[in-house]
Protein backbone atom coordinates (compact mmCIF):
# COMPACT_ATOMS: atom_id res chain seq x y z
CA UNK A 1 0.00 0.00 0.00
CA UNK A 2 1.43 3.33 -1.08
CA UNK A 3 2.22 5.98 1.45
CA UNK A 4 0.18 9.09 0.55
CA UNK A 5 1.39 11.87 2.82
CA UNK A 6 0.35 15.50 2.91
CA UNK A 7 1.37 18.42 5.07
CA UNK A 8 0.58 22.12 5.45
CA UNK A 9 3.70 24.10 6.30
CA UNK A 10 3.13 27.33 8.24
CA UNK A 11 6.81 28.28 7.88
CA UNK A 12 9.35 27.86 5.04
CA UNK A 13 10.20 24.22 4.31
CA UNK A 14 13.19 22.60 2.63
CA UNK A 15 11.85 20.56 -0.31
CA UNK A 16 15.20 18.86 -0.90
CA UNK A 17 15.50 17.57 2.65
CA UNK A 18 11.91 16.34 2.38
CA UNK A 19 12.67 14.51 -0.87
CA UNK A 20 15.97 13.07 0.35
CA UNK A 21 14.22 11.51 3.34
CA UNK A 22 11.35 10.13 1.26
CA UNK A 23 13.64 8.71 -1.40
CA UNK A 24 16.05 7.05 1.02
CA UNK A 25 13.16 5.50 2.99
CA UNK A 26 11.89 3.76 -0.16
CA UNK A 27 15.10 2.91 -2.02
CA UNK A 28 15.88 0.53 -3.64
CA UNK A 29 12.25 -0.18 -4.59
CA UNK A 30 11.89 3.19 -6.35
CA UNK A 31 13.00 3.48 -9.96
CA UNK A 32 11.41 6.79 -10.95
CA UNK A 33 10.56 9.93 -9.01
CA UNK A 34 8.70 12.82 -10.64
CA UNK A 35 8.69 16.01 -8.67
CA UNK A 36 7.07 19.41 -9.03
CA UNK A 37 8.14 22.42 -7.01
CA UNK A 38 6.22 25.67 -7.20
CA UNK A 39 8.02 28.75 -5.87
CA UNK A 40 7.04 32.39 -5.38
CA UNK A 41 8.30 34.69 -8.13
CA UNK A 42 9.17 38.36 -7.62
CA UNK A 43 6.95 39.40 -10.51
CA UNK A 44 6.09 42.96 -11.45
CA UNK A 45 2.58 43.97 -10.35
CA UNK A 46 1.92 45.02 -13.94
CA UNK A 47 3.78 43.06 -16.64
CA UNK A 48 3.61 46.16 -18.84
CA UNK A 49 5.61 48.07 -16.23
CA UNK A 50 8.61 45.92 -15.44
CA UNK A 51 10.16 48.73 -13.40
CA UNK A 52 6.98 49.33 -11.42
CA UNK A 53 5.97 47.81 -8.07
CA UNK A 54 7.11 44.23 -7.55
CA UNK A 55 5.72 41.36 -5.53
CA UNK A 56 7.14 41.38 -2.03
CA UNK A 57 5.08 38.57 -0.52
CA UNK A 58 2.25 36.13 -1.11
CA UNK A 59 -0.29 35.54 1.61
CA UNK A 60 -1.74 32.06 1.40
CA UNK A 61 -5.14 31.56 3.01
CA UNK A 62 -6.69 28.11 3.32
CA UNK A 63 -9.80 26.38 4.70
CA UNK A 64 -8.53 24.55 7.79
CA UNK A 65 -9.81 21.00 7.74
CA UNK A 66 -11.13 21.02 4.18
CA UNK A 67 -7.75 21.84 2.69
CA UNK A 68 -6.02 18.92 4.40
CA UNK A 69 -8.90 16.65 3.42
CA UNK A 70 -8.70 17.67 -0.25
CA UNK A 71 -4.93 17.27 -0.37
CA UNK A 72 -5.19 13.83 1.20
CA UNK A 73 -7.87 12.82 -1.29
CA UNK A 74 -5.73 14.03 -4.21
CA UNK A 75 -2.61 12.20 -2.99
CA UNK A 76 -4.47 8.99 -2.19
CA UNK A 77 -6.25 8.91 -5.55
CA UNK A 78 -3.04 9.51 -7.49
CA UNK A 79 -1.18 6.86 -5.52
CA UNK A 80 -3.90 4.31 -6.18
CA UNK A 81 -4.48 5.22 -9.83
CA UNK A 82 -0.80 5.01 -10.74
CA UNK A 83 0.31 2.26 -8.35
CA UNK A 84 2.82 4.56 -6.68
CA UNK A 85 5.25 3.60 -3.97
CA UNK A 86 4.64 7.01 -2.41
CA UNK A 87 2.81 10.27 -3.06
CA UNK A 88 3.72 13.39 -1.16
CA UNK A 89 2.23 16.90 -1.12
CA UNK A 90 3.56 19.74 1.01
CA UNK A 91 1.94 23.20 0.72
CA UNK A 92 2.82 26.45 2.44
CA UNK A 93 0.26 28.58 4.23
CA UNK A 94 0.74 32.06 5.61
CA UNK A 95 3.13 34.69 4.30
CA UNK A 96 5.56 33.50 1.60
CA UNK A 97 8.53 35.54 0.38
CA UNK A 98 9.71 35.54 -3.27
CA UNK A 99 12.00 32.59 -3.89
CA UNK A 100 10.39 30.45 -1.20
CA UNK A 101 8.67 27.15 -2.01
CA UNK A 102 4.88 27.22 -2.17
CA UNK A 103 4.12 23.63 -3.10
CA UNK A 104 6.01 20.37 -3.44
CA UNK A 105 4.43 17.39 -5.20
CA UNK A 106 6.31 14.11 -5.49
CA UNK A 107 5.35 10.77 -7.04
CA UNK A 108 7.65 7.80 -6.48
CA UNK A 109 7.08 4.73 -8.61
CA UNK A 110 8.89 1.83 -10.21
CA UNK A 111 8.60 3.33 -13.70
CA UNK A 112 8.66 6.80 -15.16
CA UNK A 113 5.29 6.93 -16.93
CA UNK A 114 3.43 6.33 -13.67
CA UNK A 115 5.57 8.83 -11.79
CA UNK A 116 5.08 11.60 -14.38
CA UNK A 117 1.35 11.04 -14.80
CA UNK A 118 0.72 10.96 -11.06
CA UNK A 119 2.81 14.06 -10.41
CA UNK A 120 1.01 16.02 -13.10
CA UNK A 121 -2.39 14.77 -11.98
CA UNK A 122 -1.71 15.85 -8.39
CA UNK A 123 -0.56 19.37 -9.19
CA UNK A 124 -3.43 19.97 -11.63
CA UNK A 125 -6.00 18.66 -9.16
CA UNK A 126 -4.44 20.76 -6.41
CA UNK A 127 -4.54 23.92 -8.55
CA UNK A 128 -8.26 23.55 -9.25
CA UNK A 129 -9.62 21.75 -6.21
CA UNK A 130 -7.59 22.40 -3.07
CA UNK A 131 -8.96 25.38 -1.12
CA UNK A 132 -6.07 27.82 -1.06
CA UNK A 133 -6.22 31.50 -1.98
CA UNK A 134 -3.27 33.71 -2.84
CA UNK A 135 -3.09 37.39 -2.04
CA UNK A 136 -0.24 39.29 -3.70
CA UNK A 137 1.47 42.08 -1.77
CA UNK A 138 3.50 44.62 -3.74
CA UNK A 139 6.37 46.98 -2.99
CA UNK A 140 4.10 50.06 -3.23
CA UNK A 141 1.99 48.73 -0.35
CA UNK A 142 -0.88 47.59 -2.56
CA UNK A 143 -2.30 44.09 -2.44
CA UNK A 144 -4.72 42.02 -4.52
CA UNK A 145 -6.26 38.57 -4.54
CA UNK A 146 -5.23 36.31 -7.41
CA UNK A 147 -8.50 35.72 -9.24
CA UNK A 148 -7.94 32.26 -10.71
CA UNK A 149 -5.22 29.84 -11.59
CA UNK A 150 -4.17 29.63 -15.23
CA UNK A 151 -6.71 27.43 -17.04
CA UNK A 152 -5.31 23.94 -17.50
CA UNK A 153 -6.06 23.93 -21.22
CA UNK A 154 -4.25 27.20 -21.88
CA UNK A 155 -1.43 25.87 -19.77
CA UNK A 156 -0.91 22.85 -21.97
CA UNK A 157 -2.89 20.19 -20.14
CA UNK A 158 -6.60 19.62 -20.40
CA UNK A 159 -7.86 18.24 -17.11
CA UNK A 160 -11.45 17.15 -17.65
CA UNK A 161 -13.67 17.84 -14.68
CA UNK A 162 -10.97 19.64 -12.77
CA UNK A 163 -13.17 22.68 -12.19
CA UNK A 164 -15.53 21.98 -9.31
CA UNK A 165 -17.52 25.10 -10.25
CA UNK A 166 -18.75 23.22 -13.32
CA UNK A 167 -20.70 20.77 -11.21
CA UNK A 168 -22.10 22.91 -8.43
CA UNK A 169 -25.34 23.56 -10.22
CA UNK A 170 -25.04 27.24 -9.41
CA UNK A 171 -27.72 29.24 -11.26
CA UNK A 172 -26.41 31.65 -13.89
Amino acid at each position, binding site marked *: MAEAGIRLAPVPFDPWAELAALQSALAPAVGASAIFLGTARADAADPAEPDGPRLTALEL*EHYPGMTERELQRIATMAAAAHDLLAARIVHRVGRVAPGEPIVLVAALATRRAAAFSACRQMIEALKYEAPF*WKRECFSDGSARWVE*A*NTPAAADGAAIPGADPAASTGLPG
Partner: protein
Amino acid sequence: MSVQVRFFASLRELLQCTDAEVPAAAVRTVGDVWHQAVGERAPPGKLLMAVNQQYAGWDDPVADGDEVGFFPPVTGG
Protein backbone atom coordinates in the same frame (compact mmCIF):
# COMPACT_ATOMS: atom_id res chain seq x y z
CA MET B 1 -30.14 24.02 16.05
CA SER B 2 -28.05 25.96 13.55
CA VAL B 3 -25.86 25.82 10.46
CA GLN B 4 -22.38 27.34 10.58
CA VAL B 5 -21.45 29.51 7.59
CA ARG B 6 -17.90 30.38 6.58
CA PHE B 7 -16.60 32.79 3.97
CA PHE B 8 -13.05 32.86 2.60
CA ALA B 9 -10.57 35.11 0.85
CA SER B 10 -11.87 37.79 -1.54
CA LEU B 11 -15.47 36.74 -0.92
CA ARG B 12 -15.13 37.49 2.80
CA GLU B 13 -13.77 40.93 1.95
CA LEU B 14 -16.40 41.55 -0.74
CA LEU B 15 -19.27 40.71 1.58
CA GLN B 16 -17.63 42.21 4.62
CA CYS B 17 -19.07 39.14 6.29
CA THR B 18 -17.41 37.30 9.07
CA ASP B 19 -18.39 33.73 9.74
CA ALA B 20 -22.09 33.40 10.59
CA GLU B 21 -24.66 31.10 12.01
CA VAL B 22 -28.13 30.64 10.53
CA PRO B 23 -31.10 28.81 12.11
CA ALA B 24 -31.35 25.29 10.73
CA ALA B 25 -35.13 25.54 10.50
CA ALA B 26 -34.84 28.39 8.00
CA VAL B 27 -32.76 26.54 5.40
CA ARG B 28 -33.15 23.45 3.26
CA THR B 29 -30.41 23.98 0.68
CA VAL B 30 -27.02 25.58 0.28
CA GLY B 31 -28.74 28.35 -1.66
CA ASP B 32 -31.02 29.00 1.29
CA VAL B 33 -27.98 29.28 3.55
CA TRP B 34 -26.46 31.89 1.24
CA HIS B 35 -29.57 34.08 1.32
CA GLN B 36 -30.09 33.68 5.06
CA ALA B 37 -26.50 34.71 5.74
CA VAL B 38 -26.00 37.32 3.01
CA GLY B 39 -29.49 38.63 2.31
CA GLU B 40 -30.88 39.17 -1.17
CA ARG B 41 -27.47 39.83 -2.69
CA ALA B 42 -26.90 37.51 -5.66
CA PRO B 43 -23.87 35.24 -5.49
CA PRO B 44 -20.87 36.24 -7.61
CA GLY B 45 -20.51 34.49 -10.97
CA LYS B 46 -17.84 32.11 -9.84
CA LEU B 47 -18.65 30.84 -6.40
CA LEU B 48 -17.56 27.54 -4.88
CA MET B 49 -19.34 25.99 -1.95
CA ALA B 50 -18.84 23.11 0.43
CA VAL B 51 -21.01 21.28 2.95
CA ASN B 52 -19.08 19.78 5.83
CA GLN B 53 -15.85 20.53 3.98
CA GLN B 54 -16.79 18.66 0.81
CA TYR B 55 -17.61 20.39 -2.46
CA ALA B 56 -21.33 20.81 -2.91
CA GLY B 57 -23.84 22.52 -5.18
CA TRP B 58 -26.37 25.31 -4.77
CA ASP B 59 -29.30 22.93 -4.46
CA ASP B 60 -27.67 20.39 -2.13
CA PRO B 61 -29.48 19.78 1.17
CA VAL B 62 -28.27 21.20 4.44
CA ALA B 63 -29.14 19.93 7.93
CA ASP B 64 -28.77 21.02 11.52
CA GLY B 65 -25.14 21.01 12.63
CA ASP B 66 -23.72 21.26 9.10
CA GLU B 67 -20.94 23.63 8.17
CA VAL B 68 -21.33 25.47 4.86
CA GLY B 69 -18.37 27.23 3.25
CA PHE B 70 -18.51 29.77 0.42
CA PHE B 71 -15.39 30.81 -1.45
CA PRO B 72 -14.00 32.10 -4.74
CA PRO B 73 -12.10 29.90 -7.25
CA VAL B 74 -9.05 28.44 -5.57
CA THR B 75 -5.59 29.73 -6.42
CA GLY B 76 -3.13 27.51 -4.59
CA GLY B 77 -0.08 25.69 -5.91
